[in-house]
């Protein structure tokens, strides 16, 4: 790591703040804290952190409202860390601009992996001509996908789906988002189409389609590419 990144943690629980301070510093991150929504808004403006870890249950304003307010100007990643574990909450947070979502209790190793992925994704240039994941390489410039060096024949829908996911690798894309991007607004309820294409795509790019490592299912929420 070339420079020490500053992370803002918005959480009203002292135990969680202490825990995050200790474990994140072990991984080389600098941490600043806010214990309420208002404090969080101020801290985000003054410290301009590389990433914000946001609790949803805040004493003054609801975390979801804070997330929306932050997203009016704050472009860097936000990871929601909450005890709320329902799929509605998760999808809602992702739709409101959260880059990732982790439920408490969590493993610090997992949290750090998500932080790294989110920061890397936000810093990567979006128009990289070549995306590589293990044995799979996507040549965006020439619309060609190779697995172990050999060209994989994809239909145009499969190709759009793969590139959409790959360009957002490490990030959970909700079903609705993918359906809207690939098929359009009229198809938001047609999850069955998405399932069929995901299954087809897995057969073409995964080593073992029954145990996918690239195209990962996020239970009831969506898909994540690589991790």
């Amino acid at each position, binding site marked *: 790591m070339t420079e020490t990144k500053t992370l803002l943690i918005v959480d009203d629980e002292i135990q969680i703040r202490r825990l995050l301070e200790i474990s994140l510093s072990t991984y080389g991150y600098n941490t600043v804290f806010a214990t309420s929504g208002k404090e969080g808004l101020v801290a985000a403006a003054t410290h301009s952190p590389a990433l914000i870890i946001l609790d949803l249950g805040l004493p003054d304003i609801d975390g979801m409202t804070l997330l929306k307010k932050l997203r009016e100007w704050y472009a860097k990643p936000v990871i929601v860390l909450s005890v709320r574990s329902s*799929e509605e909450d998760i999808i809602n947070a992702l739709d409101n601009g959260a880059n990732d979502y982790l439920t408490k*209790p969590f493993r610090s190793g997992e949290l750090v992996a998500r932080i790294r992925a989110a920061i890397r994704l936000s810093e990567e240039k979006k128009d990289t001509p070549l995306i590589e994941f293990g044995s799979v390489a996507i040549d965006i410039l020439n619309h060609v996908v190779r697995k172990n060096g050999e060209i994989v024949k994809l*239909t*145009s*829908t499969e190709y759009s789906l793969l590139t959409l996911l790959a360009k957002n690798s490490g990030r959970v894309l909700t*079903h609705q988002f993918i359906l809207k991007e690939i098929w359009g607004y009229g198809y938001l309820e047609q*999850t*069955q*189409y998405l*399932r*069929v*294409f*995901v*299954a*087809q795509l897995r057969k073409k790019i995964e080593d073992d*389609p*029954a*145990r*996918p490592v690239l195209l990962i*299912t996020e*239970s*009831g929420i969506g898909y994540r590419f690589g991790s």
Partner: protein
Amino acid sequence: MTGKETSPLEGIFRHIYPYLLVVLIIGLTTLACIPLSNLQSYHIVSFILLFVVAILAVFLGIGPVLLASTMSAIAWNYFFIPPFHTFHIAKTEDRLMFISFFIIALLNGILTNRIRRQERLVRAREDETNALFQLTGELSKTRGIDGVMKVAGEDFRKHFGAEAWFIIQDGNNNLLLPSVDTDNLATDKPDPEILNWVFSNRKKAGRYTGTMSETTLTYYPLTGARISPGAVAFKIDEHRFRNKDIFWDTYCTHIANALEREFLGEMGIKARVLDESDRFYGTLFNLISHEFRIPIAAIMGASDTLMLAETSEKNREELYGEIFKASARLNQLTENLLNMSRIESGRISLRLDWHDVNDLFHRATQSLKQELEPFRLLIVVPDDMPLVRIDFALMEHVLINLLLNSSQHARPGTTLKLEASYRRNNLILNISDNGPGFPPEALPRLFDKFFRVEGSLAGGLGLGLSIVKGLVDVHKGTVAVRNNDNGGAQFTITIPSKLPDMNHLNLTE
């Protein structure tokens, strides 16, 4: 011509018809007897006429019978008693005979008529007794308030051709009145005011009763020995109701008693449910105090030791492991309790969507990677397995609980099998292991809350399998368990799932 103009005429005709019939038949009989009109045979004619009057009395009411007797006496006198064609009777013995003929005809007619009426009454009473017997028989076989109302309603229809409405109280002596259909006031509907009056005064009212009788329905209170379950309203023909107070009191009391029995039964069930929930919380607190304290003790003890400077590096590492294991166990316990309470309170919302069973199996086995490590995992999904409509997260939880259960009971190194199939609009999931299976006596209770197999090594609250059942129930599915012939337990989950609409899907695009 409209019905209104013809019906009074018809009424009159129906009224005078028996008299006309009497005139006709007596007239014809007299005519037929004319050839016999000589001095010797007029006695025979009297017998014939008496016979005809008796026959008429079997079929007709008292008025026509009186007419028949009078007419036949006159006809006999006029046509057959000498001197013929006069009302004068010459011989004293003939005069006596005429008077006795008239009396015999009259008595004959009246008695036959009375016997017939009596017989009709007996038959009606028999019908009523039958109705009562049948009602009692059927009611004693019926369970549940709705069941009783259905049986009683059918009985009303069958025996009296009557429509009946039963209105039940809510347990606090308020009738659960049917909503008033304002668009359709013309049809017969029980009047809430009369119902309430009948219910609170425990008296009948409505048609034929003398109280508020200007309505179309008759209202009876349903009064049992201890409580009043409600009231009944019915529409019935007058002849089936008038002067049958005792019968109708008995009939309604029978229904009331059956309803009271069910009512008290259900209240008893409610009391039992409350009692059960008391016991539920008792068990819960016992289990929580035990199951939660152990990992908490482990965490406190281990961290306490870690704070001591002299703890060796090797011990430290082990203690860290213990803390992690204990917290994972606490997490699992909390998760199970939360899920159980969500299921119990009915607050689980089902998010049905199309899913790939391969995905489901993969996710479930993935999250139990460590626990499943010692086993050989066999996953069978047919190539043509369709997408199924389930709540992915809930079903993942179901599989995790079942796999955890198997992993705790089966020997390391044996095979755990996950199998999916699709048959007759149902998703079928089989989860089997090669463990020792369950003791047969435990099988029926496996899905009960807090049930733990006697002597089972695994700790826990005994909630895992009841959560499985709860989550499958939410899917309107079933879960069954049996011991395999070759050892091991097999869980079978069946969940109704239609096929997805793929009409507009083009796979080659």
